[in-house]
């Protein structure tokens, strides 16, 4: 009955399609809020990592290193059980949003830091010399230039986050992976392994693949535009020189 060619197995999956859609809904819901949290944390800690204040840089560094060098599963469990034992049960979905948001936030912070550091020093100085405050400088001058550099790796982090919702399984989540697993091991529904995992995988793929593709095409477009600009500059220089002669 587990066989990929078993018509009955496929029928069973179809019969329980609601389970898969519910899992998908929970996964997407968790992911969306976690992405927003990760973005906020990423921008905050990315800015701190590039600030002139040593203490802020240190705090950002500690956050990034702690999160990047421990398993996300551990972080999820820690958050869930530590909070549960201290009497603050916040629910599985909220735990998932917090855990994945904090986890991905550390990677987002690195993306933001790299994006800011890719902007030439002269841009910071020009903005400062005009009297832009720190936040004005970042908002009007620096971030608009680094956003192009940051977007592709950010989308990749979003894709990772969506896949990482499977961590919720360990705390008894109702995400797509967890529900797929209970489906194939369930007393009444059990057995249809291959079709169930294929469908579950397909659902992930349908969401993640367009995102990855978008990210890589942005990246290509960005490279091409840079080349064009170098070319345009050379041309402008040439023409100017001729006109003056």
């Amino acid at each position: 009955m587990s066989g990929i060619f078993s018509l009955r197995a496929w029928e069973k999956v179809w019969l329980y399609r609601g389970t898969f859609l519910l899992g998908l809904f929970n996964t997407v819901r968790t992911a969306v809020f976690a992405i927003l949290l990760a973005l906020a944390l990423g921008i905050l800690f990315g800015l701190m990592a590039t600030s002139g204040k040593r203490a802020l840089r240190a705090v950002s560094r500690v956050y990034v290193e702690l999160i990047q060098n421990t398993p996300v599963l551990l972080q999820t469990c820690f958050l869930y059980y530590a909070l549960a034992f201290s009497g603050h049960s916040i629910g599985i979905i909220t735990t998932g949003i917090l855990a994945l948001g904090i986890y991905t936030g550390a990677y987002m912070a690195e993306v933001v830091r790299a994006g800011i550091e890719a902007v030439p020093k002269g841009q910071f100085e020009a903005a400062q010399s005009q009297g832009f405050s720190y936040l004005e400088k970042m908002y009007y001058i620096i971030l608009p230039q680094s956003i192009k550099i940051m977007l592709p790796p950010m989308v990749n982090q979003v894709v990772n986050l969506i896949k990482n919702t499977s961590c919720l399984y360990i705390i008894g989540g109702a995400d797509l992976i967890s529900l797929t697993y209970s489906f194939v091991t369930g007393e009444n529904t059990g057995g249809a392994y291959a079709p169930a995992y294929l469908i579950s995988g397909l659902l992930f793929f349908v969401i993640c693949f367009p995102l990855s593709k978008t990210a890589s095409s942005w990246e290509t477009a960005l490279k091409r535009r840079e080349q064009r600009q170098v070319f345009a500059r050379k041309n402008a220089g040439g023409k100017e020189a001729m006109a003056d002669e």
Partner: protein
Amino acid sequence: MRYSEAPIFFHGALQCAASVQGKGLAIMIKMENVCKNFGDLEVLKNVNLEVREGEKLVIIGPSGSGKSTTVRCMNFLEEPTSGHVYIDGQELTAKNRTKLVRESISMVFQQFNLYPHMTVLRNLTIAPVKLHHKSKKEAEELAYHYLDVVGLRDKAHAYPTMLSGGQQQRIAIARALCSQTKIILFDEPTSALDPETIQEVLDVMIRLAKENITMVVVTHEMGFARQVADRVVFMADGQILEEGTPDHFFTNPENERVRQFLGKIIRS
């Protein structure tokens, strides 16, 4: 190339009241015992300097002597390790730098540093609109005025990367003018340019020099220094070794180092 004959300042932002020699008496920039270290490296060793309203001060000296650092202390791009900097009578501190710099000082850089993600027009209007509370219309009027001054009105909608170095630097000067500050600092504004575009930038600066703007210019262009400077300062090893009028400098400087330096530069 044609430049508009319009006066550089309009809307009566600044009056051109200074007489020929009698520059205004107000001291616009004052550096008092300024020292600057980078780690163990002492880059400025007790620099004292005063620049009067409307004065054109040219700073010369060998590479690494601290010319850029001096100018960058004037707008707090570098914070002095010790000593004081006063702008228009107010001490410049980490706390008031943003406000004081915004109101009083602009800077033109060797590498132009135009904002590449904005059109020329936006480069010129962003500070007036966001920092000086001008309406978009007022700011654009101002921008077109200064584009005329630098002879680049037709580039308003171009992006900086599409322009030649000389054009970018003229835009950068227009951007500085759009802030309508009394002081403009120039750090080697022609050093990154192709030889054939240097003159177009110098021409604009010579025109500015006729106005009552306080200009501090680090440059290796001795012809320019001779033509526009009220006073020349020679720096070496983080100190001011000699200062005087261009005439004094280029005819009989006292200091041997100055003589050597000028000999090298003028011969090359």
